[in-house]
């Protein structure tokens, strides 16, 4: 089961394309797309990279649906 995330919204707020975000994260556009659409959950290092880039905590980007 994949986690929900706010990546698409955060990216749109900054007017970044998937390719631009991919460049900033040093990953492919396909990877950004896969994370946004919930087909892939990023590793912890990539999640931290995202959090640093958006100046948010990981929990503010990703939602743990199993949390109580």
């Amino acid at each position, binding site marked *: 089961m994949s986690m929900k995330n706010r990546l698409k919204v955060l990216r749109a707020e900054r007017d970044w394309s998937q390719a631009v975000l991919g460049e900033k994260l040093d990953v492919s556009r396909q*990877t950004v797309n896969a994370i946004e659409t919930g*087909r*892939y959950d990023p590793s912890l290092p990539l999640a931290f990279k995202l959090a640093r880039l958006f100046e948010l905590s990981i929990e503010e980007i990703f939602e743990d649906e199993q949390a109580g």
Partner: protein
Amino acid sequence: MTQKTAHRRYIKVFIPAMVIYMISIFAISWANIQSYLPKYSLYFLTIIPVLSIFAWMWAQWRYVKELDEYMRARQVEAMMYGMMVVVAFASGWGLMELMTDVPRIPIFFAGPGFYLFYGIIFAVMSKRAGEKGACL
């Protein structure tokens, strides 16, 4: 490292390795058919395509390591499916070869068979994910 750089590094090894492989395979096959060289020299000459395959697979391994985590996961998944198909088929057919008189399939075709299925499976995975992408 960007995906493009990783791909360029892979292609720089892949193309020369495949050219050497193709030329050596045709040359060895021709020499064998023509009885142009003594048999023992053919054994030594087969080292050339084997080394080119090693160079190619090393480049492939390096490429997969240099991909980002999602792209690497997809490549590995497609490779695993390709391997499952080839190993399952080879095991089943090999057993039939031992027990029945089914036609013998040269082991040479295991490699191309793996890459054929790996390529098809990767293409299907990419299509299902709505992505463009190339296998190795």
